[in-house]
């Protein structure tokens, strides 16, 4: 993102990993709760006797959490002048 006006800063909220992580985590929470409180025998029978919402909810919590942790541990650093990274390929044409 070529927005940086300061020297270098973390990309912060608009790191796509935060967005993926947040959405999947939220979905995980909703499914987890639906799995605990809303699981009637009819709903279970549909999925062949498994509490599908609960298990998928747990999986999504883990995957969403992974993205959030990844983005937190290794933030994207946005350099001041991103357009200059082009210098790696001195192309022959303008």
């Amino acid at each position, binding site marked *: 993102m070529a927005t940086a006006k300061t020297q270098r800063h973390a990309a912060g909220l608009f790191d796509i990993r935060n967005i993926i992580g947040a959405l999947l985590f939220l979905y995980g929470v909703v*499914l987890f709760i639906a799995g605990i409180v*809303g699981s009637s025998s009819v*709903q279970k029978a549909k999925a062949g006797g498994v509490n599908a919402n609960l298990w998928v909810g747990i999986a999504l919590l883990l995957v969403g959490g992974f993205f959030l942790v990844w983005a937190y541990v290794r933030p994207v650093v946005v350099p001041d002048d991103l357009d200059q990274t082009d210098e*790696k390929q001195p192309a022959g044409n303008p």
Partner: protein
Amino acid sequence: MIALDSSSILRLDANWVDYLLIATYFVFVLGIGLMARRSVSTSLDFFLSGRSLPAWVTGLAFISANLGAVEVMGMSANGAEIGMPTFHYYWIGAIPAMLFLAVVMMPFYYGSKVRSVPEFMLRRFGPTAHLVNSISFAIAQVLIAGVNLYLLATIVNSLLGWPIWVSTVAAALIVLSYITLGGLSAAIYNEVLQFFVIVAALLPLTVIALHKVGGWGGLKDKMATAHTTSQLSSWPGNSLTGFTSSFWSVIGIVFGLGFVLSFGYWTTNFVEVQRAMASKDMNSARRAPIIGAFPKMFIPFIIIVPGMLAAVLVPELAKYKAAGGKGGPIDYNDSILLLMRDVLPNGLLGVAIAGLLAAFMAGMAANVSAFNTVFSYDIWQTYIKKDKPDGYYTALGRWATLGATVIAIGTSLLAGQFSNMMNYLQTLFGFFNAPLFATFILGMFWKRMTPTAGWTGLVSGTLSAVVVAILSNDALGSLSTGVVNLSGQGASFVAAGAAFVVDILVSVVVTTVTLPKPESELRGLVYSLTPKEDHHDDHGGSWWQSPPKLAGVALVMVIILNILFR
């Protein structure tokens, strides 16, 4: 699929939890558009994300842009109808071409700093070939965007009962708002998000359905009972090609689908290439299609396998299939929706509906974002208003997005009236791709090839594909005469093959009698005239950072998959 009585069969009883999940997704989609707006300050930001994205993002967007309505519904329908031969569309018809794009062609696209695939055409072959390419591409994109929009609206209509025009306008407005705000960044970020949502929807669907049928063995048993065991092997795939001879079927799949059609599509289609071009450096641009290839080779397991499962698990569909695909009120296109209806509890159902809507909108958004770039840079800036300030073109891109969306709404209404015509139009646009690949690959490696050869090859190649399609049984519907006994995919393979061969022949012949471009103008565009350092790929040295080595790993994996599921 849109017959009135089928809507009640497909109606999913979504409850408030499902709607909550769907609504959450749309908040995220629009939020991405709003946030991406902050990063748009030049036209390059708007059209190519400022060439700043990491390889895993552009790689996922690369396959996500293709993971639209046509693919999800079409490939699961094929899975339900013919079973495993459908895998060829991925393992033969996509992966090799994606790897070839990454290793061989991307250095030319990215290294020459062109902003679109047609612009490469302009620099290599001049204005005539460029006009042919950019106009046909722009028209194809708005029409296909309309088809995607129409599919989305019919599905919302049958799933949730919304009137067609309400869902058409609502979906168009959402796509319009996030692309006009955030340009390609918003489109790409949404494609990446869409990828995860669709996996979160389809993976549990597959696993649960597989559990319900009693595992892989259970699926085999059920298919044996239904006398469709032969659908469990992917080769020689006669059911896919429509050829009676197994030998020609294999040849058709490898050369027709695997070479001409798929190389034409994946290496010259700007919708795909644009995603890789948004990468932050040469190495990322080359790795994007390879990184995309890894999930791409496993996507059939969550799209085709559910189709196969639906054909044994959903009673209506099993009956329809046993009757030889006749008798309605449903058809194969409904496979994945029927499976969702029967297998998913409320909650997961919401995730699945959000995933499908996401896929459909992303398909349309990909078409629109590729269209606005080609329209603004290749048509308007090149031929109509040349020397305006940069901000003018960004604004133009936003208006082009609005225009494309309005036309797409119009096209989607047409598609509802003349659905067959739309299919044939898409077949026709497919014919542009095979000669494009021939022209590009010849132009990249043969410095003598002339500008005149560029456009004559393209035009004659496309025309010969159209001629073959007209001679075939059904490739262009009632326009086809049936002089040559070819039908289904086999006819497309032969048409594309003819286009490729004629393009090469005409290009070679015309080159010998016309004047080539001066060599000084071809640096970065032709292999032998490009210094090695122009294509220098600054990677760290690990095997997973080297495009050829990473592509080798992907190739070995896809060969293993082919052997495992032969």
